[in-house]
């Protein structure tokens, strides 16, 4: 087993670690598949349907949907694999921050511009000001970030409490 796996289970033997890791891998795989279906297959289907309605408008978002799905799936799988450790909370914080950057980038800072050719020759420019929507996305993501930070603090404080409560080995005179 790779040495990094043992970092996930402090103070435990390799055999015990492997026994605990297998269900996590299974759970992470299941979550990954569910997230893949929810955040890649379903949105891609919706975008492709909308692309038929207005190809120049929605087809450019296929790649954005894919990147969004990759970010989510990576973090949900990694978070599941590291559950019960501080890394899980660190990954959740990282996900929240990366998603904020992703939303700002994907929505071009809230001002989305695109051109549509109508009847082959007539070009129509559309500028949509989505700053309020972007603000809502960031606000909700910050809520998630706050939750992850609190979870990390809670995890560390509980760990410290356990260490205080654990009886220390008696010192030899």
């Amino acid at each position, binding site marked *: 087993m790779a040495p990094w796996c043992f970092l996930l289970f402090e103070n435990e033997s390799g055999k015990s670690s492997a026994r605990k890791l297998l269900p996590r891998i299974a759970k992470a795989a299941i979550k990954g598949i569910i997230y893949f279906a929810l955040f890649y297959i379903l949105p891609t289907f919706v975008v492709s349907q*909308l692309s038929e*309605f207005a190809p120049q408008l929605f087809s450019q978002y296929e790649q954005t949907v894919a990147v969004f799905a990759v970010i989510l799936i990576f973090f949900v799988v990694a978070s599941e694999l590291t559950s019960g450790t501080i890394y899980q909370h660190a990954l959740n914080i990282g996900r929240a921050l990366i998603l904020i950057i992703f939303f700002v980038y994907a929505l071009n800072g809230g001002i989305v511009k695109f051109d549509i050719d109508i009847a082959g020759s*007539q*070009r*129509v*420019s*559309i*500028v*949509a*000001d*989505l700053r*309020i*929507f972007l603000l*809502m*996305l960031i*606000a*909700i993501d910050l*809520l*998630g970030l*706050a*939750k992850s930070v*609190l*979870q990390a*603090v*809670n995890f560390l*404080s509980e760990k410290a409490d356990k260490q205080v409560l654990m009886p220390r080995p008696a010192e030899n005179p």
Partner: protein
Amino acid sequence: MRQAIRALGWANAIFWIILLLFAITVVYSAVQIQPRFGEPSVTNSNGAFVVSLPLSIYNGGFYDINRFNITTQISDNRGSAINRSSTLVPVLPKGENTTIEHRMTLSIKQAATSNLSYLLFNDSELNVEAIVKLVYANAFPIEISSNFTTSWGAPFANLTLGNIVLISSTRVSMPVSFENHSFLGMNGTLRLEIVDSTNNAVGGTSVAFDAPPETRFERSIEVTVSGSPAQIREARLYFETPFLEYGPVVFSLV
């Protein structure tokens, strides 16, 4: 702390669901908007072409459209602004059909009194910039713009003053012709003034003219001149119509 984390988790999930539903309904509603353009009509009002563009919008979505504003700006191919018109509709309510009539006015009088006078005599291409601004679902300001060109037909296209024909020692004849390429019927008085080499008017006359749209006006104008016809240097044409006074258009006869 656990309760606070749980509360944040619930709030986060609820807000995500609300935002997702909002985004889905906004996209769905936007697809349900059905604009229909009517047949543009051109009318004449006090010497101006009034182009009316009827527009019917069925807002079949879940959200109102606010501050719907159509602006059109017409300029010539040199970039000089001819007209700017705006039509503002405060609200296009959800589930309702709203009919809007956007009017653009092209004043010939304005063309005659500004640096656009060449449009009276030359066909041209006019640039039309159309901008639609609206606020959708009280949250998303949207601007849609497009440019296109339209042809302009000059009301006195190919204005020509022919060579002087001597009828007698004091009487001359000059053929005048032009084509009315505009949608507007041009009628009124055409005044011809003859000027000699000392810049004095030595003769003049007025004739009525009537040039319906897409017709050619052609007429020989006879003028009695004082002094020798050999001294004639130039002819000046003045147009007087119910909605336009323009002149002089100077033709050198030397």
